[in-house]
């Protein structure tokens, strides 16, 4: 008997293979590593099971001052950058929607630039802007204006920490993150039927009334969606912070978030067991937020049934 294989399967093999090898297996393995004393990639140590990593993580949360700094940085960084990304994105999307198309297009492109720039170059730009010596852009401007008398190391000076390090992180990531909200909100505003705006206008509504009573109420769900999605990516991404810490532009602990801490423990201090345990916490948060985002997306409506199969 010949087994008839669904042809769809053939088309899906490459994708399924990649997902299995690079998502499913690593996910299970990652949680497993969290329960092993893996160090220095000595894979032989993966045989024994222990809860030591989680105990240690729990202990560190309350007793390790450096780890305490990382946790506080993560909270402050996530909260403020999230606010900037959502509110800034909303403002940007709205302003671009209200503008003439001729002006709107170049602005949308301009604001996307940080997102599309290679991380290394983007970090370089900011590294140089906040550079400690006289040649750093910010120092050189402020010196010339007479605001400061001597060049300051903005991200590492103990007199300025931790606020300046936080401001640097928030600023650097804010400019990247804000474009996501901008795109979502901009297209959301455009999908609102024009008649409503016109009707409000005919009734004598001012622009600010239209914004408050017609436009904003209709993108409520998009606001929730952007918030959840950005919260998720702020908690888990670290690429834009990585080089700033590595190059010493910001303080090692006051400039690290949880995700970057996980990365550095795994690849700098080589305690993969501990890192995987800390990553497991992220996995749980990620799974919950991801499911929430799915519900908000009204996912089912986006899946159109195939019409025919011959």
């Amino acid at each position: 008997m010949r087994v008839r294989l669904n042809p769809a399967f053939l088309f899906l093999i490459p994708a399924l293979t990649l997902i299995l090898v690079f998502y499913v297996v690593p996910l299970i393995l990652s949680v497993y590593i969290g329960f092993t004393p893996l160090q220095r990639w000595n894979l032989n140590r993966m045989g024994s099971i222990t809860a030591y990593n989680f105990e240690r993580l729990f202990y560190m949360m309350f007793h390790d001052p450096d780890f305490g700094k990382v946790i506080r940085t993560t909270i402050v960084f996530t909260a403020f950058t999230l606010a900037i990304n959502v509110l800034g994105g909303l403002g940007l999307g709205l302003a671009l929607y209200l503008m003439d198309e001729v002006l709107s297009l170049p602005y949308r492109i301009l604001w996307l630039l940080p997102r599309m720039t290679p991380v290394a170059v983007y970090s370089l730009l900011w590294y140089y802007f906040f550079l400690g010596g006289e040649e750093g852009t910010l120092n050189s401007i402020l010196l010339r204006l007479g605001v400061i008398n001597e060049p300051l190391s903005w991200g590492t000076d103990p007199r300025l920490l931790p606020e300046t390090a936080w401001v640097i992180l928030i600023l650097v990531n804010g400019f990247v993150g804000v474009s996501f909200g901008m795109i979502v909100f901009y297209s959301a505003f455009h999908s609102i039927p024009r008649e409503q705006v016109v009707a409000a206008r005919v009734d004598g509504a001012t622009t600010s009334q239209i914004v408050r009573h017609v436009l904003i109420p209709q993108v409520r769900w998009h606001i929730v969606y952007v918030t959840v999605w950005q919260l998720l990516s702020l908690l888990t991404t670290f690429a834009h912070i990585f080089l700033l810490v590595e190059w010493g532009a910001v303080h090692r602990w006051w400039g690290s978030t949880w995700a970057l801490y996980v990365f550095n423990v795994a690849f700098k201090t080589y305690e993969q067991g501990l890192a995987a345990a800390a990553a497991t916490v992220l996995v749980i948060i990620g799974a919950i937020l991801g499911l929430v985002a799915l519900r908000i997306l009204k996912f089912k409506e986006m899946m159109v049934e195939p019409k025919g199969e011959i």
Partner: protein
Amino acid sequence: MQDSRSRASVKSLLKREIGKIRGRLKPPAYRGVWDVETIDRRRLNLLLALVLGLAGLPVFMLYVLLVMSSFANTMLSGPDIFSARYSIENWRMLFEGRLSPAAGQQYTTRDIIMIIVNTLVVALGVTAVVLVVSVMAGYAISRMRFRGRTRLMELMILLHAFPGVALIIAVYAIYVWTLGFIPTENTFAYKSYMMVYTVFARAALEIPMSIWLMKGFFDKIPWEVEWSALVDGASRFKVWREIIIPLVKPGISALAIFAFLAGWEDLIYVHVFLYPEIKTLATFIEEVVGSIETTYLPVVAAAGTLYLLPTILFFVLTQQLLLQALSGGVKA
């Protein structure tokens, strides 16, 4: 259960048809929300443009300063752009590998060329893998019936949201394990394996979003095209290759650009998997700036500008496509 599902699908079908008809009845697109000319639009336009411009100015300034510094004899920080001397000396030094004028050679011209080639190989490799995988899977998800289709798409979204830092530890563990089987004395095989693994691992990160994007492009093709070919006796694979693919070329080129840029800009993966044996522009810049005391910054500015170049180029050439594709994935 079965009944409610089919009813839902009929409903969504109806909704789509109605939407189509409505689309046809719609008057031509309005420009802005200024259909009723009761207030001065020029003033608001100007105000908004000014605010957005001022807010974006710091970042824009940084880009300009970087590009100008790559031609200047000093790193520029504002007013000094008028007093600096400009030449292509920095670029010459970059390609000669002289990153600090005082110290001896750190790199040779060949090293620099290799770094650029490596970056290109990673970027093109990621592009190829992403294209093949997501054009195939996107078609299946958009056009074919199979069990767990909706579940699979949900999974894609969840995977896209998945914390990469949790994955990379385990992906690296697998890497270490498999590298053990490659003979170290065979440098070529060893390095090739490193490169291939990195390309696949990096491409996998892009897969969920790319499949989602590609599915959207396939959804837009009318079914009649496919039916007529199938009725004429063509196989599913043949239809896909000869009829459908040519129709989604715009989608494929958008995807190719995104995948290329993703591979081109990557830092974390090339840092973890390839550095220091195989360097790319990202890890090269990471390394030179790391030894800042000896480094001549304007040369780094030249390296940064070189690295930025394809991004800017794609940007100028494909701005419409870019915005269209980016907003397509989040239409809720």
